[in-house]
């Protein structure tokens, strides 16, 4: 049983560019949440997708957007990248929008230069 997978593993971008990160949830899960983890910090919630819609959003600007596909996989898009967007981006999946159990993927390390 595959767990949560994310791609790519690492990514280097330049300020002002756009980036797309991808996540495939654990088998049987239908909800995907995205988190940003700065170095030495705990993960910070970006948003959650359920039934292909953004259901909840954290305190992030609208440069951060996402999408969920019919197969429950999800993308995180960040436009107009800033140096401060450099972080580990984590995807977590769960079954049901309000589920207590969230399983995390290995993350995508984004570096903005």
């Amino acid at each position, binding site marked *: 049983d595959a767990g949560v997978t994310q791609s790519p593993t690492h990514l280097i971008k330049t300020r002002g560019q756009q980036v797309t990160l991808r996540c495939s949830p654990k088998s049987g899960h239908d*909800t995907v949440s995205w988190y940003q983890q700065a170095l030495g910090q*705990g*993960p910070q919630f970006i948003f959650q997708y359920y039934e292909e819609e953004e259901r909840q959003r954290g305190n992030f600007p609208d440069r951060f957007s996402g999408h969920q596909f019919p197969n429950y996989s999800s993308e995180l898009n960040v436009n107009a990248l800033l140096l401060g967007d450099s972080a580990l981006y984590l995807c977590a999946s769960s079954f049901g929008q309000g589920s207590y159990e969230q399983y*995390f993927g290995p993350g995508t390390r984004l570096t903005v230069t």
Partner: protein
Amino acid sequence: GESVGLHLPTLSVQEGDNSIINCAYSNSASDYFIWYKQESGKGPQFIIDIRSNMDKRQGQRVTVLLNKTVKHLSLQIAATQPGDSAVYFCAEKRRSQGNLIFGKGTKLSVKP
């Protein structure tokens, strides 16, 4: 503001000793608490959870204690092993929300 935080940023223990990692939370509306372990280069891994209607929950070598009076959460690891070396995060969840709220983390180092 409302947050989940940790008392100690680093903890160094001898192999075989017991470890205790502490966490404070500020929102009494939280009804679910989780401890995650994060090794270098990996995503957070679920360790153990506890609901707000419980005071204690035990797993394999781990115990979580919840003191709602002082809004305190702790993770006890028995017979700490080198493989336990990692950063540990506590997180809270509120029934009405889908997201987890994480603290900053405690780095546990196990000396052989």
